[in-house]
C-alpha cells in the first residue's frame, strides 16, 4: 500500500465518520431545540463516541500502514483519520458542558497515538524476517491495540466523564 492512497482512504474514512457524527448531532440537537430540552447531553455523547470510534480505528490504521509503507505514511494516514472530525467536535463542545481541557487532552492523545503507533508498525517491518507476514501481523497488532483501547475505555470512562 503506497502512502497517498492510504492517506486518501484514511481521510475519506475520517470524513465519513465526521459526517455520520454531524448528522447524528444535528438531528438530535434539532429535536432537543424543538422540545425545549437541553442539547448538551447529546453533544457530550457525540464527543465521547467520536473519540471512541477514532481511538479504535487509529491503532489498526497506523500500525498497518506504517508496517507496509513506513512511519511517515502511517502517521499521515492516522492523522488524516483524526483531523476531519475536528469542526464537528468544536461545535459539539460549544453545545456541551464539557471542560475544554478534557476535549483538548482527548484529541491530544489521539494525535499522540497517530504519531507514536506508526513506530510500532515500522518496528514490526524491521523485526519480522518474512516480508509476507508483516501485513497480517501488523493488522493483528493494530486490532489488539484497538481492543485494548476499547477495554480501557470500558473500564475507565476517560476522557469524557461528565
Amino acid at each position, binding site marked *: 500500500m503506497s502512502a497517498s492512497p492510504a492517506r*486518501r482512504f484514511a481521510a475519506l474514512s475520517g470524513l465519513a465518520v465526521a459526517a455520520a457524527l*454531524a448528522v447524528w448531532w*444535528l438531528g438530535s*440537537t434539532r429535536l432537543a431545540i424543538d422540545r425545549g430540552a437541553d442539547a448538551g447531553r447529546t453533544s457530550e455523547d457525540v464527543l465521547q463516541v467520536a473519540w471512541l470510534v477514532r481511538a479504535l480505528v487509529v491503532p489498526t490504521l497506523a500500525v498497518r500502514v506504517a508496517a507496509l509503507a513506513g512511519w511517515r505514511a502511517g502517521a499521515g494516514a492516522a*492523522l*488524516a483519520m483524526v*483531523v476531519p472530525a475536528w469542526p464537528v467536535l468544536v*461545535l459539539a463542545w*460549544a*453545545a456541551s458542558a464539557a471542560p475544554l481541557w478534557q476535549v483538548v487532552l482527548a484529541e491530544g492523545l489521539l494525535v499522540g497515538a497517530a504519531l507514536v503507533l506508526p513506530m510500532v508498525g515500522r518496528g514490526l517491518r524491521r523485526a519480522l524476517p518474512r516480508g509476507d507476514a508483516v501485513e497480517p501481523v501488523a493488522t493483528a497488532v493494530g486490532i489488539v491495540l484497538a481492543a485494548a483501547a476499547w477495554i480501557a475505555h470500558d473500564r475507565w470512562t476517560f476522557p469524557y466523564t461528565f
Partner: protein
Amino acid sequence: MSSLPALSISDAVARRLLLLGVALCCLSQANAAPRVELTAAPAWKGWTRPGRTTEIDVRLSADSAVRASLDVVAARQSTDSTVELQPGRVARLQIAVGSAASVDVEARAPSAPPVRRGVSLALSESPLLGVAVASDERVALDGFHALALAADDLPRNGSAYASVDALIVDAPTLAALDHRQLAALVTYAADCGRLVLMNIDQRVRRLLDDAGGCGGRFMMQAKSLAEATSMLTASLATSLPAALSPSSIGELARPSPAAWNAVAVSLAVYFAAAVLALVFIPSLPAIVLTSALAIVGTLALLQGMYPRSQLIVWSEGESGTQLARYQAVQRFPGLVRERVRVPLPPQLGAAAQSCEPGQTMHYEVDVTSGRATFAEFETRLFRQVTLCYSGSFPMQRTIAVDARADGSRSVRNAGTRAWPRGALLAGGVARDLPALGPGAATVIDARSGGSAGDSALRTAQTRTRSDSTAALWSLDLAGVAGAPIDSTGWLLVSVAPPR
C-alpha cells in the same frame, strides 16, 4: 566634622515627620474604613414551601457615606444591588429569593471588611396559612400549618406571596401595611390568592373589590376568625385555576432555528470543501487547513450572529372582570459558551425567576424600584435559557353569548372597548370571531366551526370546559416596554355559563 550635628538634627526632624506621616496615614485609613451594619430577616417568619419564592428583608447602615454592594445567594440563584448609604440612615431592601434551606447575605463596601449574615428558612411540606391579625386567637385549618404574623412579616414583593397558600388579614394589620406591602397584597389577590379580609370598612372593601382575580371568588370578607376559617374551608372545595406550565407556554411558539440552520449549512459547506480538497489536493496539510478554516469560519459565523430573545405570554381572565392573570416565558438562545447579561422588561422584571430551578442565575436588582433589571447566566450553543414571569394586568372584555335554537350563537361586545379579531371556543369547536365595536353583535354559525389548527387554539381548548364558552385573542405586546421583537401573546377570556 561640623556637618555632623546638622545631619543628626535633620535625622531627628525626619524621624518626627515620618512618625507624623504614619499617624496621619493611619488616621486617614481609620476614617476611610466605614463600619457597615447588616441585618437580614425573612418574610413569613422564615416559613416558605419548596420551590416557592419568598423574601429577605435587609437593613443596611454605615457610619459614613459609602456605596455598598449587597449580594444575596439562595441555592443557585443570586442577586446583587448597589446601595448608597448615608450616615444615620438605614437603607432597607426586600429581595425576592427562591426557597432554600439557607440564604447568605453579604454587604461589601470599599476598604471595609465584608459583613455576612446567614438566614435560615423553614421549608414546609404542608400548605401554609398566614394569619395576620391583631388578636392572639389561634386558628386551625385542616391540613394547613398556621403562621401568626405581624404586619412587618408580610412581604413587599408580590412574588413572595407564593410562599403561602391562604391568608387572613384584619383591618388593623391592613392599616399598618406600607404602600409596597399593600401593592404586593393586591398582586396576591389579583393572582387569585386565597385571601380573607376581616372587619374592613366599606371604603377599603370598595377599593379591593375590583382587585381580586378569578372574578374575586378567592377574596373573601369575614367578621371573625371563626367565620374566616369556615369561609376558607368552604373555599378549599374550589380549586384554584392551575397556572399553565412553562413547558406548555413554550410549546405555543417554537424556538427560532436560525442558529441550528447556520451550523447545519456551515457543516455542509465544510464537508463539501473537504471532499473537493481530498480530490484535488490529497495532502495532510490540505486536510488540516480545511478543518482549521471550517472551525474558524463557523465560530466567526456564530460570533457574528445576534441571538434574539423570544417572549411568549399566555393570559386568562373572565368576561366582565377587571384583571387577567398572565404567565410568560422569555427564551434566550445561546450561540457560544459565554456568560451573558440580558436586560429584563421593566414591567415583568418584578416577578422574574428562572423556569428551571437547577439553572444558576444572577440578577441585578434596582434598589429604588425593587425589581430585577438584568439577569446574568452561562449559556452555550443551542441552549435555551428561559425566564418565567407571572402577574396580572387590567382587562376590559365583556362578552355576552346567547345560544340560539338553530345551534348558532349570538355574540355581543357588552363592554366599552372594541375587540380585535379572535376566535370563539364553544362545545370543543373553535370559530372565527370578527372584530366588534362596543355594543356590536354578531352571529356565529354552528356550521362554521373547525378544528383548532394552531397550538394556541389547542391550548385554549384544553383550558376551556366543554360546556363553557370562551374567546381567544392575540395580545398586542407593543406596549410592553423592553419586550423583544419576537414577542407573542394570547388572552383567553371565559364566559361564565348562564345560571
